[in-house]
């Protein structure tokens, strides 16, 4: 049922995030030690670095996977914390709806941004 399903995917999403966010953190914050996927050889957040990564389909797909997994994992975690404060049934239903709608909207926007950045990078 619902809670069994949501919890199982929460754990699986966490494991996916461990891998993909680990890669993202290595690229962005361990660049002096490891230097992965920083083809421009400058700061990872410099425009050239960002565009060179965006050109790679692997990054676009990874960002979208990370976005989905992290939104689900984070918002389910928030839902858990708020539910455990002992709120009423009506509040629980309302909260679930708001978090789901917010999560879907953010995912749609973020996925569009990742795709659009990839498309822009290919024109440069």
């Amino acid at each position, binding site marked *: 049922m619902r809670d069994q399903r949501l919890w199982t995917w929460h*754990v699986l999403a*966490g*494991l996916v*995030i*461990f891998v993909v*966010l*680990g890669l993202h*953190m290595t690229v962005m*914050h*361990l*660049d*002096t*030690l490891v230097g992965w996927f920083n083809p421009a050889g400058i*700061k990872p*957040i410099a*425009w050239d670095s*960002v*565009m060179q990564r*965006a050109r790679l389909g692997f990054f676009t797909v990874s960002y979208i996977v990370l*976005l989905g997994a*992290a*939104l689900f994992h*984070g*918002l389910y*975690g*928030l839902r858990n*914390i708020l539910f455990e*404060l002992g709120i009423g049934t009506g509040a629980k239903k309302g909260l679930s709806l708001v978090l789901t709608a917010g999560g879907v909207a*953010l995912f749609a*926007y*973020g996925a*569009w*941004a*990742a795709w*659009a*950045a990839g498309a*822009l990078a290919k024109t440069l």
Partner: protein
Amino acid sequence: MLDNKGHPNRLGIWGWLGGGRWGFERYLYTLHRLTGLGLLCYFLLHIFVTSARAFGQDAWAASMGRVSGPPGSARGLFFTVGEFLVFAAFAFHACNGVRLALIELGFAIGKPIEPIYPYRTSVHEQRPLAVVVMVLAGIVLAAGGYNFLFHLTH
């Protein structure tokens, strides 16, 4: 038969913070919640800050300008330290999360035993894993710290 509901006696949020008089797993539980909430807040803003790259180089530069400051300025230091704290929260939450994923799927907690004193509970059985995970988080934190300092000073 009892007809009154009794005086309420739940510990409330203080019950989440009961570490110190118990095992250190209680601290890990509380810290995991706090880092999770911190990461979620950062992440929701991060989606908007980084989506600027879809609108071109000027939009990207403006967005990056909003979350940084000139080198040596207080604003710059604030954002750099803040970002390091996010990295630290990630290091802890990820490593502890792996530990929790293993434990909550029934690994590293030992098999049911006959509890003849002095027995090892699941909390004792998983403690080596907890120590390894904390050391790993420390290593990741140190590596990230070195990287941040490098960028601050070069």
